[in-house]
């Protein structure tokens, strides 16, 4: 369970302090798929850094499973808009990177390398990259790189997956394909997800709960439960309730942008 209690974050900034978040309160249950949407620059990426402990709040508290976050949380998986793969490593080696860092895998890395390789291959097969394991990132398309990045964020079976606009740079078809990949992985492993996105359909299709943020300084202004039953199929996106939900979210964001 992730709790942000009345969190404010002010960056020093070069031209004076910038308050990115002001009095943000947010709850995410264990195993929940939460999405965060909001206007550009409202502090969504900042929120992600706070939850993973990469930065400390100026005031308020962030806690995970009842313990206050006081430094980098250690076992969160993260993926961003850019795949950020290491160009000198093959796809397989890239995916295995977290195992070289996170305990207890790290200690056993050289001994159990073969087993870890099988594990990484299994994950690559799930996202459809099995045949490309020995390629280098720069030999692959953006969508393929993003799949690999997703594998890298999940290989160590984190309890928490943080995604910051992971599909923003992809074309519509690839994006929908990866939605399904993520949906299946989440259903299989049951980790907690916080997904930041600008794509309201993405949020509505994937998430259990959607949090709408105000313009900067950001805080959560509305939380919507997504009623669609699981497992969800892409068809759900063409239902009237779905379109209605997306429309309402859109209006809400337009409203908070106006207010700024």
């Amino acid at each position, binding site marked *: 369970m992730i709790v942000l209690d009345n969190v404010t974050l002010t960056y020093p900034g070069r031209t004076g302090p910038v308050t990115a978040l002001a009095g943000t309160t947010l709850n995410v249950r264990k195993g929940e798929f939460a999405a965060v949407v909001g206007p550009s620059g409202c502090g969504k990426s900042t929120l992600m850094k706070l939850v993973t402990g990469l930065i400390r709040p100026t005031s308020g508290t962030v806690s995970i499973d009842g313990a206050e976050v006081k430094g980098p949380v*250690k*076992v969160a998986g*993260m993926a961003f808009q850019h795949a950020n793969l*290491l160009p000198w490593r093959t796809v397989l080696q890239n995916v295995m990177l977290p195992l070289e860092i996170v305990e207890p895998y790290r200690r056993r890395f050289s001994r159990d390398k073969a087993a870890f390789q099988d594990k990484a291959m299994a994950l690559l097969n799930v996202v459809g990259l099995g045949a490309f394991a020995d390629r*280098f990132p*720069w030999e692959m398309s953006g969508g393929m790189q993003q799949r690999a990045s997703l594998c890298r964020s999940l290989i160590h079976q984190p309890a928490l997956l943080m995604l910051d606009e992971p599909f923003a740079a992809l074309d519509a078809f690839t994006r929908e394909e990866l939605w399904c990949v993520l949906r299946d992985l989440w259903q299989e492993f049951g980790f907690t997800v916080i997904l930041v996105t600008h794509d309201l359909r993405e949020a509505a299709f994937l998430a259990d709960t959607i949090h709408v943020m105000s313009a900067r300084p950001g805080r959560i202004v509305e939380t919507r439960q997504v009623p669609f039953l699981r497992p969800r199929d892409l068809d759900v996106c063409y239902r009237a309730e779905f379109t209605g939900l997306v429309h309402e979210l859109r209006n809400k964001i337009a409203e908070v942008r106006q207010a700024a």
Partner: protein
Amino acid sequence: MMKKLSVENLAPVYFTVALFVIWEAACRLFKIDTFILPAPTEIFAAMVKYWWPLLKNSFVTLWTTMAGFAIAVVFGIALGVVVGWSRTIYRGLYPVMIGFNSVPKVAVVPILIMWFGIGEVPAILTAFLISFFPIVVNVATGLATTEPELEDVLRALGASKLDIMRKVGIPRTGPYLFGALKVGITLAFVGAVVSETIGANAGVGHLMVQAGSNFQMPLVFAGLISLAIQGILMYAIFAVFERRMVAWAFRSSQSAGG
């Protein structure tokens, strides 16, 4: 395609030959005095005649260059890692290093000779000084410009600063380092020769100064040409090395996906 490629590959040979032919022709046509500019044939004759002193002194220059360069690589990488370790150190030290680097190293040679006497030590130290800074600057730049998002990914996995350096910082410094080595080795060469011309009892620079004071201009030019050959060879060795070691940097720059 193959044919075009081989023409392109041979182009440097054609140009070099053409240069020597024009040079030779100019010397004969305008009857240029050997003491001003010897013709290539005279230079090659001197090279053949004095092959042993040339070879012997080339070895001296080569090893002093290599020794100075090796010290520069070791210390350059070490200091580069220290400087690149934190952004604050990087910002603070960068201007200082640029300042040091803009001091002409030739000006330091007489001081070195006073400190260490005539011999190989000043040449080694000059080679070291002149090739040291490009290595530091490039290693530090490679380390200090790690993508912040990638750093976030690793820190959220519990990676220490040392882990991030080992897994990301140092490997990604490769292209910067090899670029610097390629430039650094030619600079080290310049440093060693400059020092030898100012004060030494061996080396190609020393040989050229001696030949010059005996008015053996063809031998002076023979020295120059043997320096040029050594310089090209060393550059080529490091360029090949670079292509081998950091092939990903060459190929990923022409990558299709974003």
